[in-house]
């Protein structure tokens, strides 16, 4: 048993670095420069962007990377799917047939 109950806490152990990217909605009506924690799941980022861009919240949306045309995987962190400065589109996931 020791008497040292405090630790030196370095911010290096904390995720304070942010991932910045450009986002636009599918109609090109709203755009924003966004910074998020890279460890956030893409689904959580999408939900926050739907609110920020004032899109209808009853519609399923996803994030598409303009450089590849592919939707991001909702379950994976956004930091492992895009690079800083990426251009993303918030797009409906509706299937038309």
């Amino acid at each position: 048993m020791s008497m040292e109950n405090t630790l030196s806490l370095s911010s290096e152990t904390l995720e304070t670095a942010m991932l910045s990217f450009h986002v636009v909605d599918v109609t090109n009506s709203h755009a924003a420069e966004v910074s998020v924690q890279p460890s956030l799941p893409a689904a959580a980022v999408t939900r926050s962007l739907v609110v920020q861009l004032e899109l209808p919240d009853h519609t399923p949306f996803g994030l598409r990377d303009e450089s590849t045309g592919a939707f991001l995987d909702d379950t994976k962190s956004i930091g492992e799917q895009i690079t800083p400065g990426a251009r993303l589109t918030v797009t409906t996931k509706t299937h038309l047939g």
Partner: protein
Amino acid sequence: MRSELAEFGFHTVAPGRYRSGDVELELRADWLVLRAPRRTHARKLDLGPLDERGPWKSVAEGRHRIRVAELPARISGRISADADDATLSASPLQDAIRWTLRARDGFWDDSWNCPSRDQVLSWLSPENMTIASGRHARQAELVADGSRLALRAAILPTIPQELPAPRAAWLDELLMETQAHWRMVRTGYVDSRSSAMAEVDFSGAPLSILEPLVRAGAAALHAAVCWSIRSADFLIDLQQTCYCLEVRPSRAACVMQAGK
């Protein structure tokens, strides 16, 4: 008098309230709350620091600041304020009190085995770790490095260096309010006030209570960050103009008093 409290020298001072030395213990239906006076001189700002192992934090009580530790009653089943509830298992309750009192005294048990990250994460769902409120989203992180076990999340991942002093003072107030309002949660700054964080610390907690403690702590962290995040973001948004935010909280209180 609950027999499991006698081991720690607690005596009854009121129904559900006990005292041992300068520590008061209150058994509520859902929470076990320990209060103790501060042992250091009060500072104007009393957040964190976010480097202390154990459950204690500082809150305001009247004009004084005291130390408080809050534990969910579910760690030992449902705690009843009625005396001698024989249906409870005494051991987890005693384990919890022993851990809390030792942490308050600054003891650290070198033999404590920190559970693995995988084990702790198995107690939580992915939804526990992602905190969303309106257009804001934060990812909580688990600190499990052998000598420290904590959940933490950024209320503000970045704070502008040019934040005016009155707004910084309002942010202090918001973080202290968050710390006082939400059980188990501490708040504070890291890296020279470049980030504002909330955390719940489980370091040294006995394994007998750890799983329900971590589950409750994750829920508390989630609620505290959701509760504070919009106000905090508003405070650091320098595009927003608001006369109230250009006046320090102490000055604003004087103005409000004078207006009564």
